[in-house]
C-alpha cells in the first residue's frame, strides 16, 4: 500500500506544466528565441506531453528562422495527434486515479488548427506554394470534421485559417476556391465578432470585392462595396502586374493556464480533500497595429486572429466537464483512502496506509495547465502591393499608446505577379513571467 502510494506521488510529480517553462518565457521576453529553444529542450518532460513539446519546439524553431526544422517538428506533432485521438482506457483510468495531466496531450481544437496554419506559413515564407496548398486542404478537412463533431462549440470556424487558405488559393490563381475561402472567412468573422472581438480585416474587405469582380459576380461585388463603403479597389489583373508583400505579425504570447486549487481537511473523516482546476490568465496584448512601408508606400495591419480570446472561450466551454471529472476524482481518491484505512484495523498498518494514500492522492491532484504557450496572443496581417523591383521594407510595430514598440528592416525583390510572405514574431519585454 505504502509503495503504491509512493508510486502515485512519484508518477504525478510535483510541478504543473506552467511552472516548468519560466526560463523559456524569460528568454522570449528578452527577444532571444534561440535561448528559449535551448531552455525548452533542456527541461525534462513526460511522455504524455510529446505533442505539446513538439508544438512548442516547432514554434520556437520558426521564431529562430529555421523553417525546415519547424515544419518537420510540427508535422510530427500532427501525425502523433492523429494517433492519439483514439481513446485510451489505460489513460482514462489513470486520469481518474492521478490527475488530468496524466492523459496524452493532443491540444484543443484551435491548437490543432494552428499547427496546420503555421506549417502553411512556414512553406509560404520559403516560397513553396504547392505544399502550403496541401495544408490549406487539410485545414478545410479538419474544420469540416470539427463542425460535424461539435457544431455548438464556441470555436467551430477559424476565421484566420480560412482567410489564409483564401490567400493561398488566390496565389495559385484558383479563383473560385479563393472566393469560397474568403466568403467563409467573412462569415466566421461576422459570427465570432462578439465572441472573439475581431472585426473583419480591412484587407479581406478588398479581397472579397476584387475576387467577386474577377468571378463576374456583379451583384455580390456590389453588395460588398455597399457594406464596406469601398468605392475603388485594384482589380485582380492590376494586382497581378505588380508584386505583393503579405506581412503577418505574431504578437505577444497566448494566455497561460494557471492552477486554482483548494485543499481542506475534512473534520468528519480526518482526511484531506483537494480540488485543482486550470484557469487561463490572459497576458496583456500591447500591440495595436504594425505598418509595413517601402519608401513612400505603406500598408497598415489589421488584427486577423485573437488567440487570447479563443483560448479563454475554449477552456470556458470545457470547464463543466473538467470540474465534473475533478469532483469525481476527489470522491474516488477519498474512497480509496477510506478503504485502505479500514481494511486492516487490528494493527496500525491500516490507518497509516490510509493516511499515506490520502496524502499521495492529495499531492497528485494538480490541474492540467498544459497549453501551447508559444503561440502568439494575436496575429495581425497586411497586404502591400508594389511595382516589381527591389525594396528595403521597414516594419514598425505600434503600441496601444501610439509609441513605436519595435522596428526592423529587410530586403526583398519582387517580380510582377509574385507574392512574398514575410512575418515578424514579437514578444513584449514586460511579459508577465512567474518568479
Amino acid at each position, binding site marked *: 500500500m505504502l509503495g503504491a502510494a509512493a508510486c502515485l506521488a512519484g508518477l504525478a510529480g510535483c510541478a504543473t506544466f506552467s511552472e516548468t517553462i519560466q526560463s523559456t518565457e524569460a528568454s522570449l521576453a528578452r527577444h532571444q528565441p534561440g535561448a528559449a529553444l535551448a531552455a525548452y529542450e533542456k527541461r525534462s518532460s513526460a511522455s504524455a506531453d510529446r505533442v505539446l513539446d513538439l508544438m512548442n519546439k516547432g514554434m520556437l524553431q520558426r521564431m529562430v528562422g529555421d523553417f525546415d526544422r519547424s515544419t518537420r517538428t510540427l508535422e510530427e506533432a500532427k501525425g502523433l495527434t492523429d494517433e492519439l485521438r483514439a481513446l*485510451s482506457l489505460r489513460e482514462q483510468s489513470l486520469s481518474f486515479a492521478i490527475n488530468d495531466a496524466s492523459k496524452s496531450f493532443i491540444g484543443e481544437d484551435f491548437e490543432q488548427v494552428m499547427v496546420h496554419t503555421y506549417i502553411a506559413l512556414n512553406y509560404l515564407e520559403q516560397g513553396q506554394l504547392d505544399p502550403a496548398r*496541401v495544408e490549406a486542404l*487539410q485545414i*478545410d*478537412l479538419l474544420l469540416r470534421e470539427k463542425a460535424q463533431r461539435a457544431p455548438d462549440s464556441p470555436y467551430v470556424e477559424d476565421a484566420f485559417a480560412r482567410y489564409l487558405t483564401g490567400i493561398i488559393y488566390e496565389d495559385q490563381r484558383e479563383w473560385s476556391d479563393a472566393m469560397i475561402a474568403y466568403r467563409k472567412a467573412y462569415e466566421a468573422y461576422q459570427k465570432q465578432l462578439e465572441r472573439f472581438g475581431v472585426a473583419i480585416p480591412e484587407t479581406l474587405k478588398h479581397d472579397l470585392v476584387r475576387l467577386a469582380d474577377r468571378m463576374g459576380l456583379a451583384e455580390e461585388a456590389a453588395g460588398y462595396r455597399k457594406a464596406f463603403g469601398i468605392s475603388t479597389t485594384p482589380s485582380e489583373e492590376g494586382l497581378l502586374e505588380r508584386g505583393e508583400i503579405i506581412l503577418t505579425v505574431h504578437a505577444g504570447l497566448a494566455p497561460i493556464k494557471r492552477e486554482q486549487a483548494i485543499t481542506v481537511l475534512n473534520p468528519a473523516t480526518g482526511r484531506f480533500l483537494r480540488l485543482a482546476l486550470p484557469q487561463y490568465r490572459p497576458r496583456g496584448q500591447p500591440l495595436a497595429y504594425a505598418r509595413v512601408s517601402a519608401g513612400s508606400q505603406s500598408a497598415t495591419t489589421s488584427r486577423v486572429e485573437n488567440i487570447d480570446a479563443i483560448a479563454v472561450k475554449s477552456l470556458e466551454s470545457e470547464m463543466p466537464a473538467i470540474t465534473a471529472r475533478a469532483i469525481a476524482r476527489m470522491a474516488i481518491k477519498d474512497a480509496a483512502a477510506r478503504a485502505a484505512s479500514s481494511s486492516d484495523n487490528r494493527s496500525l498498518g491500516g490507518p497509516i496506509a490510509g493516511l499515506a494514500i490520502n496524502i499521495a492522492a492529495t499531492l497528485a491532484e494538480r490541474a492540467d495547465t498544459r497549453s501551447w504557450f508559444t503561440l502568439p496572443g494575436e496575429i495581425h496581417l497586411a497586404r502591400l502591393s508594389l511595382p516589381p523591383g527591389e525594396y528595403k521594407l521597414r516594419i514598425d510595430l505600434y503600441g496601444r499608446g501610439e509609441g513605436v514598440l519595435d522596428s526592423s528592416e529587410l530586403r526583398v525583390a519582387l517580380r510582377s505577379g509574385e507574392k512574398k510572405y514575410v512575418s515578424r514574431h514579437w514578444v513584449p519585454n514586460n511579459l508577465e513571467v512567474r518568479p
Partner: protein
Amino acid sequence: MIRVVPLRTGLALLALIAAAGCATKVERLDESKAVDLSGAWNDTDSRLVSEEMIRDSLSRAWLQEFRGRPGQTRPAVIVGEVRNMSHEHINVATFTLEMERALINSGKVDFVATKDERKGVREERKDQDLNARGDTRNPMGRELGADFMLTGTINTIVDPSGDTQVRFYQVNMTLISLADNRKVWVGQKDIRKLVTRSKLRF
C-alpha cells in the same frame, strides 16, 4: 541467502523481458506487397500509378504515329512538373522517376535531362572544354531537344464522416508535343480508399 537468489534471478529475467520488448524489430517486405498503415499515400499507390501509366502510355497511338514520321525512331521526352494538388504531402519524385526508368528501359522512348540536371551537365561540359583531352571532349551545342513533355497532377477528394473517410486520388499525366502544344496522350489512374480510424488505443 537462499531467498535472495530467486529474487535476483527474477530481476534478471524481468530485465531480459524488458530489454527484449525494447529491441527494434525489422522485417523485410516484398516490394510488391501492399502494407497500409495510416491510409495516406504510400509506395503501393506510387507503384500502382506508375505501372498503369507506363503500360497505358506505351500502348497508345502517339508512339506509332511518331515512329511513322520520316527519319524518326524514338521520341525524346522530358519530365516537366508533376504538381501535387492533393491534401497530402506526397513525394511525386518517386513515381516520376519510376516512370522514367521503365520508359527508358522499354527502349521505345528517350529521356532528356531535366532543367536542373542539365545545369550540372553543362557545367561539366564547360569544364571539359578547358581541361579534357581533345579526342574525349564533348562539344557544346549538341544537346538532344525533347519532342514531348510529360506533366501531371495528383488530385484528391476526401469525404469524412466521424472516424471513417473515403479518400479518392486521381492522378493525371499528360504528354504534350513541344512542337505544337498538342496533347498526344492523357493517362489517368484513380485510387479509392476507405480509411477507418481506430477508436481505441493502449
